[in-house]
């Protein structure tokens, strides 16, 4: 289902209004030291507004709207530096469930995710932070018809608050995906102290946990494809979040260079400053179309075919991730000393964008993913 332009604008306006009121700089700062790093009331309100459900299939209780129409709401979460598991659970995990081969399990968990009674995260990368078959933190062996899962998954978003995790594990025959209850014996979750204090990640350690066959989301043979889907969803959400931050950084910086006077004139009248901000406009405008395209491509209800999905998601992740990081670096330099203080939001914005740049795969890896697709027709390598 598609929204009209008016409906899209309305939901983005609602989001900006709500979040500028409920996630002010003071509020964000008050949560920096909080163990869970978010406001449960705001989460409940966002769930009530349907932000977690709109882009998910109707069989989950979602509204079946294209993510290409609803993603601006998630860029507002970046703009207001909102913490909490909404995006991880509703978009990354929810979108992965929508694509999973085991729709019995996906439907049951998806329904509880949509109604807000369960929070789901995704566990992929090992300690090196790679999102590939070879980089997975968990492995599984088959024993007596069941999978025995062991290992350490790092950088699991919102691990401390999530009820369940979609765990990708390597086996000697390929990747599998299983759903694991995180608060049970045999699973241990420890927090990771991130530099970006607006978000939370954790490490999930599992020792010889028997996984019932009914909890296998994608068996060997389908797991690798589901891992790609999950990476594309995560990559796209990271780009969308960064865009929200970067767009606001440019707006705030523009205001500053018009007001700040040195040598008897606004510093925004100096060409060195002007060109830096013009570059930022270029980066914002090109990123704007890249995230819209990626959101369309990974949309859980109507995803693009695999190759164009990968190109769009990886382009957004690498280009927008780098572009917004560049805007933050240039902005901090342009603010001068004031931008280097803890009191200014610049460092919070920069840290959030830098985490986005690294999570769900580095920019250079995503560019190589695009090349895998681009070169496949010529070199006959599997892409």
């Amino acid at each position, binding site marked *: 289902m598609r929204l009209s332009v008016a409906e899209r604008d309305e939901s983005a306006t609602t989001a900006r209004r709500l979040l500028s009121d409920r996630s002010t700089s003071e509020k964000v700062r008050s949560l920096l030291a909080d163990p869970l790093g978010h406001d449960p009331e705001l989460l409940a309100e966002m769930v009530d507004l349907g932000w977690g459900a709109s882009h998910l299939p109707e069989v989950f209780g979602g509204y079946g709207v294209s993510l290409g129409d609803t993603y601006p709401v998630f860029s507002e979460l970046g703009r207001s530096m909102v913490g909490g598991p909404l995006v991880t659970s509703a978009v990354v995990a929810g979108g992965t469930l929508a694509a999973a081969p085991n729709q019995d399990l996906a439907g049951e968990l998806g329904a509880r995710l949509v109604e807000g009674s369960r929070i789901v995260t995704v566990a992929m990368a090992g300690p090196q932070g790679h999102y590939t078959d070879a980089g997975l933190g968990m492995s599984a062996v088959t024993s007596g018809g069941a999978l025995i899962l062991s290992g350490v998954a790092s950088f699991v978003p919102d691990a401390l608050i999530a009820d369940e995790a979609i765990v990708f594990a390597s086996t000697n025959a390929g990747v599998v995906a299983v759903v694991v209850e995180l608060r049970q014996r045999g699973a241990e979750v420890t927090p990771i102290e991130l530099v970006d204090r607006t978000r939370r990640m954790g490490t999930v350690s599992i020792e010889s946990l028997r996984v019932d066959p009914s909890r296998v989301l994608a068996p060997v043979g389908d797991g690798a494809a589901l891992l790609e889907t999950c990476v594309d969803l995560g990559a796209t959400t990271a780009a969308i979040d960064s865009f929200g931050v970067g767009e606001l950084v440019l707006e705030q910086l523009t205001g500053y260079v018009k007001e700040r006077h040195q040598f008897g004139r606004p510093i925004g009248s100096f060409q060195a400053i002007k060109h830096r901000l013009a570059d930022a406009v270029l980066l914002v405008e090109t990123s704007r179309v890249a995230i819209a395209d990626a959101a369309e491509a990974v949309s859980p209800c109507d995803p693009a075919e695999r190759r164009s999905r990968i190109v769009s998601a990886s382009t957004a992740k690498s280009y927008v991730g780098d572009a917004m990081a560049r805007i933050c670096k240039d902005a901090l330099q342009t603010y001068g000393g004031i931008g280097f203080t803890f009191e200014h939001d610049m460092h919070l914005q920069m840290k959030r964008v830098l985490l986005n740049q690294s999570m769900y795969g580095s920019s250079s890896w995503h560019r190589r993913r695009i090349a*895998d697709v681009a070169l496949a027709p010529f*070199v006959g390598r599997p892409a």
Partner: protein
Amino acid sequence: MIDELNQFEERRQEVREWCARTVPPDWRRQQSGADHDSFMSFQRWWRDQLADAGYFVPHWPRQWGGSEMSLAEQVVLYEELARGDAPRNAISQVAIYNSAPAIMHAGTPAQRELYLPAILGGEIWCQGFSEPNAGSDLASLQTRALRDGDHYVVNGQKIWTSMAREAKRCILLARTDPDSTKHRGISFFVLDMDTPGVEVRPIKNAVGESEFCETFLTDVLIPTTNLIGAENDGWAVSQQTLGSERAVVLVGLAELLRRNGRDFLVESACAWTMPDGSPAVEDAAIREAIGGLYGEVEILRLLLNRMIANLIRNGGAGPESSVVKIYYSELLQRLMRVGMELEGLPSQVSRPAVPSSGWESRDFLHDFINSYAWTIGGGTNEIMRNIVAEKVLGLPKEPQGTGGRP
């Protein structure tokens, strides 16, 4: 994808079939290393083909012999011409996109009757705006036009007048009020290039082509009937270029960059090897470079789609066209530079140019050097960045100099 384009499937099919019939399959080979005369006669032939099909001035009103295509229809046309590997119409740009709009907007009925059919008939025009001391600071131009009865007497020097040797006429900016400075006191003329006192000297450009020229004007008489718009109002007249239509032409350029630039790079890279003999496309750094450019070319197309969609729905090209110009030109340059660097020493071998091919001649080094035509021409990217900062963000203007006066 822009929804509005779907209603022009018939037009798309028509252009596709026309290209298949009309574009000579071996034109690149035929035009490879073509000398100036061969280039010109090929260009004239190609222009006539476009005109016969109604694709020469697709945006003009029917009244003046155009095809009155909507913006969406023009997008379809330029997409299909690019997909059909059509040559670039390199000789008509000034006539169609710079001269005609000014004449349609500010010309008298008699001037329109005289000039528009001539342009439609294929007359080549050139543009006498820039001067040796008036490039980015165009408004400080010094060419003088002094009124003497029913003529103006013009003295001065113009530069970068593309196609001046072949041009029948020139749109000329000259200062008619010697006491004024900057944008005031400039008038807009049509100059017949065979008028006595007009001397044209070709300038060889950095890739060895002689498309643009210096034009010297010594006591040249221009009849007052050739003044377009009011005296001293020439700056405003010169701003009448068709922003929207020019933006649409970029769709074709983006499509060409994708097919003849990026896809050619991907294909070429497959043949290259590393010093250890392994295939270049298995090298991580090369894969990263290719993947990055691949995505950036996709973004160009997305950016244009958004601009075109806005144009179709809201009309008018705003300062966002400066964003597109900067992004396109720098992406073109970057892609060619990376292609040249990755190809390595073999890219240094001189190859015959294909002057009708546009900006992707499948020779990375040549195209890299030629790409400066885009980052410098049409307003340097530095000026474009000033426009973006001032018009999009509202940053204050730089304090002005004294206009060359103490």
